[in-house]
């Protein structure tokens, strides 16, 4: 895999370090975005991590990051959102046409692990932590994974979302998919 793509990882709160480690393990470099100055560096893709969507959403506004990121996302920047990142891409950035249910499996007692099929990839481990799921998708959205009848991964154009956390497993195939199918065509 080429190491050319620079990937910004939104590092306001949550599991951003785990994403950067996963990127490293496939030879990609991720850098933290914590404040507006961090956006002056060019990047080819963005990851919005898990954490608490209300915290990250608030800090996006308070640190004056929202408008600048929204412009880039609307302009076609490849973005991968996990868990809270999924919620923010759907509800705040309105970058993917889906309806999301927050804390869909209830409290921590409802958190679970599953192995399920992800389209274009195969059987992968999925870690759900107080996770959301997708209740409805628009006509342009490709459904990528379904667990127990609920949609847990989807893609619309440059936007990839999972309700689960690939960064909490050693399986890097979701990152490879993101790189090969979404980032690479965009760089070209």
């Amino acid at each position: 895999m080429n190491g050319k793509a620079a990937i910004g990882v939104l590092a306001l709160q949550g599991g951003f370090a785990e994403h950067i480690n996963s990127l490293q393990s496939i030879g990609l470099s991720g850098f933290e975005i914590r404040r507006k100055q961090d956006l002056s560096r060019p990047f080819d893709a963005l990851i919005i991590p898990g954490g608490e969507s209300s915290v990250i959403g608030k800090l996006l506004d308070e640190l004056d990051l929202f408008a600048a990121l929204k412009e880039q996302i609307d302009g076609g920047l490849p973005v991968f959102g996990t868990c809270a990142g999924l919620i923010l891409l759907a509800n705040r950035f309105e970058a993917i046409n889906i309806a999301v249910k927050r804390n869909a499996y209830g409290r921590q007692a409802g958190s679970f692990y599953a192995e399920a099929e992800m389209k274009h990839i195969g059987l992968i481990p999925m870690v759900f932590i107080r996770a959301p799921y997708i209740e409805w998708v628009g006509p342009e959205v490709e459904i990528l994974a379904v667990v127990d009848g609920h949609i847990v991964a989807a893609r619309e154009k440059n936007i990839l979302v999972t309700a689960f956390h690939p960064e909490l497993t050693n399986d890097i195939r979701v990152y490879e998919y993101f790189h090969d199918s979404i980032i690479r065509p965009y760089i070209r």
Partner: protein
Amino acid sequence: MDNRRYELNKNLAQMLKGGVIMDVSTPEQALIAEDAGAAAVMALERIPADIRAAGGVSRMSDPKMIRSIQDVVNIPVMAKVRIGHFVEAQILEAIEIDYIDESEVLSPADDKYHIDKTRFKAPFVCGAKNLGEALRRIAEGASMIRTKGEPGTGDVIQAVRHIRLIMSEMRRVQSMKEDELYHEAKALAVPLDLLKFVHENGRLPVVNFAAGGVATPADAALMMQLGAEGVFVGSGIFKSGNPAKRAQAIVKAVTNYNEPSILAEISSDLGEAMVGINENEIQLLMAERGI
């Protein structure tokens, strides 16, 4: 508790990293905290400063009060049990609490044994003031650690002492020769496999937050710069002049702990901080509970 559940519980703590966990006593305070950007709330009837002032035995909060907070917020809700009081923990597990804090802030129920946390499905966070305490709590099943600090004082000195000690002990273990670890495990009274993890990785096998005496954005940033992965703020917020504003400022300070210009801006005009008590003025050192 099976391994899978333990991993999921450690994973929840990972999702709290870079965040602030705030003590709240009412649903109204919980909403203020959530709105200000709390990553989780700790539901307790009396915040540590009031426990300190009231004296007497302090216990797990009324489950009805905890439920009233669970009902109004979307973020995780934690609550405290007395050290060693496994029945209080069973009760909190029954109401599906997101995290149980086996806490020295409450009066200990057992002066010898901590809760066997491996028997629970619910996750536990425990306090520690040195590496030995941290690894013993992890061996008992804790999936998250926080420094003890000295709760309810608004004096950060103990939290600084504890995080510095844990970090420096980990650096020391990391630099040891492998054959020295056997003796070190004995000296610290900790399991060898956990000590080996620290030796190889230079960090705890679970997330480590700072707690106990954090009252200002600068305090929170100090703890982050010293190596904490997030911060608990207890009395510091709702004992201050403008809780919502101070809470927001502490949240931002934890994200941009390395940016003095941002810290300067958010530290401005926050109103009265909690009055606080100096370490040497207090009668009761909560940090000495549960070793």
